[in-house]
């Protein structure tokens, strides 16, 4: 503010001082305002410079010392403000002009822009400058269909605005980005703009932005390339010829920008003339070693720098050895090569020789100054090899150089190796000598065949057989070589032959003392991922090797065995074979292998994988044993077991449902008893199971029938017990017969009769008189000592006589009764029915028995009746139906209705109504004595069964009621049984 007006104050005029000061301030302010208006310069010579690619507009103008300006940018056609901003702009020292840059969102070609500027000082502004116009491409003079920006490169995620200028006379349609229609805004009469946000990677040929007219027939477009700035890595420089530099790096990220838009590199500020490639690995060679390098990678989106530095001796990467040759022997070879650069000959090198044979690669390392050869030991004869070599610096090793070219050679032949042989012997001195075919390496040349020799040392016999190449087993018969004895042995020898000669022999001693070799317990071998794992105990001093042999356990004759040799001292081995099959049991045997004959040391059995049995148990039978059912079976054949049988499951099946009855965990089980089964039909299934599960099962049915034998036995047993009981009873009765007799059949006193009643052996013929019947009447109320004869009136006789049988009716003479005095019926007197208590023909109490002897007119029952009075004292006799006949036709006293009514009192209840008593009929005359017999039914009409007579004999006939005869007949069987028992008891009297 050098130009500010200088203010002076006159202190001498005090009275006007305040006024003067005030006026001075006002004048000063007015002066300042006037000055300001006069000095704020209007921007002059406004100049526009546009960078279309970067869409940047550079504006410069002259405005003196002013530093603050108002800028306005308008779209010319539509007079729309694009920018209105106050900016501070210093004068450029270089050009002496004010310069300000503005980057447009839209391409600058889209439409014309008008720019004007004015200076500002606080709130004071100058006049606006002249408006400068940046011409767009939408001028009427440019009629073409256009779109901007052209082929722009933008980073991923950028927002880009495109504008489309319609052809003059055409109407705008749409703008598409890829397959997406975009929303557009109008910038001018012909210009339309749209913005794509957050752009993703474009295709390698760029994403298309296409502008359509309203008919969509006319289009124009541009491509936009969306990618990344460069990102190189792993930058390193090295030397290969000990002189020049080779720098290497790679592109860690695909920029998605190719060829002309791809990344350009400079190394130490010198452009790298790299041939463009999409390969991310880059390599650039510089003629000398600079020791320090800077790599700069640049593309349209940015740049990236990397540096590296090193001594030359630390970065030696030798080139590949050249001109490889070889000198070959049977077991080794020498490889020779040349070095490309002379500098290598004085450089300590480490070289690697890679040897390849049958697909396997081995590396051998050699060192030396200027190394140019290497000896490869331990090669196989007659083997194809290929070799390649690479080298590096031995000191300050940096990296291996490139591999040389590969050369191939074949080693020379040698005699073959000894075959690996083994012998399988059957149990009859036959067998086979086997050997494994030699591998190509073991052959060590072109094989011609094998030779098998059997030699008996004791008998000096030898048998040799030449075997072609494709045979690896020869049958042998030891009895043809040597005499079978416990001391003899035969040595089997196998040699292999090739074009170079014969191998060392392989031999096995075979003892001629073959036995059934099962001396050892068989263990189970477990199969794992490594095969069958076998372990055994070994003597610490044992120096012999082992042979482990295995074969299918179901094979018994000339088996195809496999074997492996185990070195001495080992106590375990895992055997694996491609021939192992699931479900096959293998016998695995461990033999000692020495100069002596092999000796079986241990044996295993195992399955590679257990399966369920392929067939069920055999011969499943069901047998009924009383109410039990016995299931029996035979074991599954070994081939079908396919696993170790762990047991059996017994099922009872009904329809498709199985009920497990039992699980027999003993694999040796061969039967099972199902107990106490009721009658019926049953079906049983037996399933063997292994660790893999059950088999399908064998099924058998049975119909369980009634057990008749047991029923018979029970009946017989019952009868036997009954018979035994009877025997015991009989025996007791016999032993106690006196008591029984006394208790039940007391002796009947001899009747005391006048006259001679002596007995004679002759039959006693009695002819009773016609009208003198004697009745024996028992009258309880009478004194027993008293006897009375009751004369029966003839009327009664007549009446009773009507009921007598025809035999009697036909004769006029009294019936003669024959009595045998020898026949003494000592049977006890039976209790009678109460209704028969009237009769007193016999009595338990002989003292009270009155016997009346009467004439017996005809045959009839002669039954002793119990004295009801006598029995009533001790016990009430039971009514015995067997004796009912006696009641009807028995030996009874004459009926007196008054007496009967007295006897049938409460003390003697009669459960059966007594028809005789009711009828009160007369009596038939008794017939002669007859032995009771149950089979006399047919004679019932003429002879009634009767018990044996007591000691007394009726000398007269009984008059029995005629009507009771039939009743008596009906009751006769039971009566007969009783009679029989009585007779039995009586006959036991000594």
């Amino acid at each position, binding site marked *: 503010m050098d130009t500010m007006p200088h203010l002076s104050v006159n202190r001498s005029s005090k009275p006007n001082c305040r006024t003067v000061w005030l006026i001075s301030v006002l004048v000063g302010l007015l002066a300042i305002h006037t000055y300001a208006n006069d000095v704020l310069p209007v921007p002059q010579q406004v100049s526009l410079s546009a960078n279309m690619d970067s869409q940047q507009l550079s504006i410069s103008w002259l405005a003196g010392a002013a530093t603050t300006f108002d800028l306005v940018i308008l779209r010319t056609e539509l007079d729309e403000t694009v920018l209105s901003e106050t900016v501070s702009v210093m004068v450029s020292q270089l050009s002496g002009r004010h310069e300000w840059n503005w980057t447009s969102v839209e391409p600058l070609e889209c439409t014309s822009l008008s720019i004007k500027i004015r200076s500002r000082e606080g709130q004071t502004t100058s006049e606006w400058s002249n408006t400068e116009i940046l011409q767009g491409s939408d001028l009427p003079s440019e009629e073409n269909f256009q779109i901007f920006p*052209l*082929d722009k490169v933008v980073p991923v995620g950028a927002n880009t605005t495109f504008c489309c200028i319609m052809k003059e006379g055409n109407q705008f349609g749409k703008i*598409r980005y*890829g*397959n997406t229609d975009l929303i557009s805004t109008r910038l001018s009469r012909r210009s339309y703009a749209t913005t794509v946000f957050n752009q993703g990677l474009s*295709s*390698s*040929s*760029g994403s*298309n932005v*296409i502008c359509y007219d309203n008919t*969509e*027939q006319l*289009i*124009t*477009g*541009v*491509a936009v390339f969306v990618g990344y700035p460069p990102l190189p890595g792993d930058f390193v420089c090295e030397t290969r010829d000990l002189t020049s530099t080779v720098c290497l790096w790679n592109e860690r990220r695909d920029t998605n920008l*190719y*060829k*002309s838009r*791809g990344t350009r590199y400079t190394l130490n500020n010198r452009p790298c003339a790299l041939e*463009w*490639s*999409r390969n991310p690995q880059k390599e650039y060679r510089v003629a000398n070693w600079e020791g320090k390098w800077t790599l700069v990678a640049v593309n349209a989106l940015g740049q990236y720098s990397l540096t590296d530095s090193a001594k030359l001796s630390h970065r030696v990467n030798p080139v590949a050895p050249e001109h490889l040759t070889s000198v070959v022997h049977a077991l080794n070879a020498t490889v020779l090569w040349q070095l490309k650069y002379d500098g290598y000959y004085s450089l300590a090198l480490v070289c690697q020789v890679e040897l390849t044979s049958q697909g396997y690669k081995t590396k051998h390392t050699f060192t030396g100054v200027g190394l140019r050869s290497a000896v490869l030991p331990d090669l196989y004869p007659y083997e194809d090899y290929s070799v390649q070599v690479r080298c590096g610096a031995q000191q300050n090793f940096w990296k291996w150089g490139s591999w040389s070219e590969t050369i191939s050679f074949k080693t020379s032949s040698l005699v073959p190796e000894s075959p690996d042989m083994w012998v399988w012997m059957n149990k009859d001195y036959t067998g086979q000598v086997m050997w494994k075919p030699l591998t190509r390496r073991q052959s060590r040349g072109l094989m011609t065949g094998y030779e098998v020799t059997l030699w008996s040392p004791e008998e000096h016999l030898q048998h040799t057989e030449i075997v072609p190449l494709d045979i690896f087993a020869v049958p042998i018969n030891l009895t043809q070589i040597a005499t079978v004895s416990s001391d003899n042995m035969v040595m089997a020898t196998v040699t292999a032959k090739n074009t170079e000669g014969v191998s060392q022999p392989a031999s096995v001693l075979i003892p001629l003392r073959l036995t059934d070799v099962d001396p050892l317990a068989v263990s189970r071998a477990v199969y794992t991922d490594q095969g069958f794992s076998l372990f055994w105990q070994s003597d610490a001093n044992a120096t012999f090797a082992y042979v482990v042999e295995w074969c299918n356990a179901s094979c018994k004759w000339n088996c195809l065995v496999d074997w492996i040799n185990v070195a001495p001292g080992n106590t375990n081995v895992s055997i694996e074979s491609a021939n192992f099959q699931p479900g096959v049991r293998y016998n695995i045997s461990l033999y000692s292998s020495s100069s002596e004959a092999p000796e079986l040391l241990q044996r295993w059995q195992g399955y590679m994988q257990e399966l369920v049995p392929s067939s069920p148990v055999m011969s499943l039978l069901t047998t009924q044993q009383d109410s039990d059912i016995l299931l029996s079976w035979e074991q599954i054949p070994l081939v079908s077991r396919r696993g170790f049988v762990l047991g059996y499951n017994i099922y009872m099946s009904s329809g498709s449902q199985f009920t497990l009855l039992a699980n027999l965990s003993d694999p040796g089980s061969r039967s099972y008893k199902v107990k106490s089964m009721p009658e019926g039909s049953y079906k049983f299934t037996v399933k063997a199971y292994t660790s893999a599960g059950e088999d399908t099962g064998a099924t058998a049915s049975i119909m369980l029938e009634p057990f008749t034998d047991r029923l018979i036995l029970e009946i017989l047993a019952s009868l036997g017990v009954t018979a035994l009981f009877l025997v015991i009873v009989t025996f007791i009765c016999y032993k106690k017969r006196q008591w029984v007799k006394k208790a039940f059949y007391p002796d009947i006193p001899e009747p005391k009769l006048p006259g001679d009643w002596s007995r004679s052996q002759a039959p006693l013929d009695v002819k009773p008189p016609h009208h003198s019947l004697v009745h024996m009447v028992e009258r309880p109320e009478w004194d027993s000592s008293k006897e009375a004869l009751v004369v029966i009136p003839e009327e009664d006789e007549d009446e009773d006589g009507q009921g007598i049988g025809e035999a009697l009716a036909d004769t006029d003479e009294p019936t003669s009764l024959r009595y045998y005095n020898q026949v003494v019926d000592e049977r006890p007197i039976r209790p009678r029915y109460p209704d028969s208590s009237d009769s007193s023909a016999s009595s338990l109490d002989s003292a009270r028995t009155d016997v009346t002897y009467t004439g017996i007119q005809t045959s009839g029952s002669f039954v002793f009746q119990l004295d009801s009075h006598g029995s009533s004292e001790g016990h009430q006799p039971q009514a015995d139906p067997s004796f009912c006949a006696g009641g009807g036709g028995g030996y009874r006293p004459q009926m007196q209705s008054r007496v009967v009514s007295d006897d049938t009192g409460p003390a003697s209840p009669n459960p059966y109504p007594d028809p005789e008593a009711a009828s009160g009929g007369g009596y038939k005359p008794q017939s002669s004595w007859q032995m009771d017999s149950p089979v006399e039914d047919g004679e019932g009409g003429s002879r009634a069964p009767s018990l044996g007579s007591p000691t007394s004999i009726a000398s007269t006939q009984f008059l029995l009621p005629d009507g009771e005869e039939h009743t008596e007949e009906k009751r006769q069987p039971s009566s007969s049984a009783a009679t029989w028992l009585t007779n039995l008891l009586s006959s036991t009297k000594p």
Partner: protein
Amino acid sequence: MADQEQQEHEEQSPALDSPVPGPTETGRAVSIARLLHYECGLLMQLYKEKESFLSSFSPGGGRMVSPSPVSLEEASGEQRVERLHAALRQCLGLLHCVLLKEEEEWGEQEEDYETLKKNVRVRLEHLLLCTRGLLEGPDTALEVTPDHQGTEEPDGARGVFGLKVWTYRVLLELHHWADYAAETLHIFHTERGGTADL
């Protein structure tokens, strides 16, 4: 991959399955022309898949290849083949331009597209040799090189998009002239006594 697909397409093409009727040069030329037509169709299809906007785009601008006009009604067989040969030479020139400009712009592109492009070029060169063989006589010395050096600028739109449209036009032109070649050579073949049912 591209070779496999091409082989499959060849197997599916009935024209290619049919045996060449005799060793005549005309018959062989017809077969090559048909094969070229088939491969041009494939190439065009592949390009349309690459640049999807082309599926709904029909470029105008008429024929890019314009051999000397000959009245087809009055022209002899040899003249028609000669005209065809000239058109094919221009096609080869355009194809060379496409190969050159695409290489400049993007370098090597997708493998199947690049392979098919090169196959078409080789087939077209082969067909040119065949047509020359059909016409060559004591008085003729036909060129089989491209008719121009690939300096032709794509017309119409500028920049990469313009190149894409122009490339498509070239492919359409190739397809058209390959079809024309197959037809013309078949007529010529029958005129020379070959079987009509090739």
